[in-house]
């Protein structure tokens, strides 16, 4: 088991995300709860049939923002361990685009931090996605233009 003091695992990756690696990173003997989040490419978005998504990141800034989010979470919930990994490139329906793991001695901070992390990632981290549809069209998704529940 690893030490609770290790830093956050924060990465932009170009291939499949291994959830076990995130869980292993945040786990240590002092934690009692690990909350994780996986974002996956779904076959329907805003009523359109999706065939795949290209993810693009401004990698150094994306990793800097994710490190900043992890640091802020650690201030809000003392003793929190965090791992955040986002995938870029061409993803198919069902592929995991983002994985987050938050571990804490107690379950409420772990779950609350996980939820806060994904919300922060979605508004701050410079990552973009181009959705491809069955009709051959594609679009860069702009969440500021939509009023869809999270």
């Amino acid at each position: 088991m690893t030490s609770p003091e290790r830093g956050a695992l924060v990465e932009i990756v170009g291939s499949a995300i291994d959830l076990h690696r995130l869980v292993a990173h945040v786990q240590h003997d002092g934690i009692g709860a690990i909350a994780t989040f996986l974002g996956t490419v779904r076959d329907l978005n805003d009523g359109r049939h999706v065939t795949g998504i290209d993810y693009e990141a401004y990698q150094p800034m994306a990793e800097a923002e994710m490190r900043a989010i992890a640091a802020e979470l650690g201030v809000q919930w003392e003793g929190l361990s965090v791992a955040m990994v986002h995938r870029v490139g061409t993803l198919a329906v069902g592929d995991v685009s983002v994985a987050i793991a938050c571990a804490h001695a107690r379950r409420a901070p772990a779950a609350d931090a996980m939820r806060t992390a994904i919300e922060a990632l979605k508004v701050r981290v410079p990552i973009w996605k181009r959705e491809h549809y069955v009709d051959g069209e594609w679009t860069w998704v702009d969440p500021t233009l939509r009023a869809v529940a999270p």
Partner: protein
Amino acid sequence: MMNVPVLVFASYADAFGARTVDVPVPLPCTVADVVSAMRALPGGHRLPGHVLVAVNHAYAKPGTAVDHGDEVALIPPVAGG
């Protein structure tokens, strides 16, 4: 005037037809100066009314200074997750 290389992504890269745009500005200048100059370039009319800018991997304000060696990037509405 200097040419400042500005990184563009996603729909903004499509607008300019490039991943990096050389933007003619006097240095030092501000983020607002960079954005104004970019609106005058081919494709710049496709930028929205409000554009987020990062300087050295951090979100910047319109008045943030830009000088030699700074890494400047336009940040389209993010859509990670």
